[in-house]
């Protein structure tokens, strides 16, 4: 079974999958019948939700679940770091999405996401190892 943190990563990734698909469907329909040209403005958010929110976040959650573990009791390493990464990543994605209304926040969102990935890599670094070591 998955650790709680992976459940949060993976379920959040599924929510972003649906949100990204919704925006993509709205844009594709606009290409077809031009019902609301303004909808094409959501393209960057569509890409953000599906590349970072869905694919990157899913990979992070699954890696935390299946990478080789340490001995008990801290079998998956410093979970606090990875929780912080999860929070930062999702905050970053949502802040990047706000660029639709406040373009200046885009950079803040990207900084949060970058921080999330650095913290995640630091937290998982030593679990990239042979099994049983």
């Amino acid at each position, binding site marked *: *079974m*998955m*650790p*709680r943190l*992976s*459940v949060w990563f*993976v*379920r959040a990734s*599924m929510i972003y*999958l*649906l949100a990204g*698909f*919704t925006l*993509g*469907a*709205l844009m*594709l*329909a606009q*290409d*077809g*019948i*031009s019902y609301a040209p303004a909808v094409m403005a959501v393209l960057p958010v569509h890409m953000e939700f*599906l*590349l970072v929110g*869905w*694919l990157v976040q*899913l990979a992070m959650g699954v890696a935390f679940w299946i990478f080789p573990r340490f001995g008990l009791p801290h079998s998956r390493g410093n979970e606090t770091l990875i929780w912080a990464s999860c929070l930062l990543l999702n905050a970053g994605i949502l802040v990047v999405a706000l660029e639709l209304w406040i373009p200046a926040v885009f950079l803040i969102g990207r900084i949060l996401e970058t921080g999330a990935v650095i913290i995640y890599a630091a937290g998982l670094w030593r679990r990239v190892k042979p099994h049983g070591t």
Partner: protein
Amino acid sequence: MPTPTRWFIKTSFVYLALALIAGLLLAARSLFGLTALGGLFPVYIHLLVFGWLTQLVFGVVYWMFPKYSAEKPRGSETLGWWTYALLNVGLALRAIAEPVQSVHPNPFAGWTLVVSAAIQFCAGLTFVLNSWNRVREK
């Protein structure tokens, strides 16, 4: 490996090849000025990211995520097949209609894109419906 996973993964390889062929056509368009190949870039991207990558992920998730129950280890196989069908029908319609709509806009191609959009969204929805309860601690 369960049967739906094999279909997801093998089909994803087909889309990977198609995406790379579309990439070659895009390169040829740039080199030789082939205006008839308009509308191909979004198709190339979606063949790659949706047809290959997302389809590969869907197949592996269906196979490897925690079991739903002893009787139904992978949730609903029917929903799994619906996801497969919706993803591939939706993407194929898009791959055909989007370049047509770009070069020769017409109501048939336009409404095909609307139908494709709805079908692709439903593929994501059925995937999430079938996978959500397999993502759990206990």
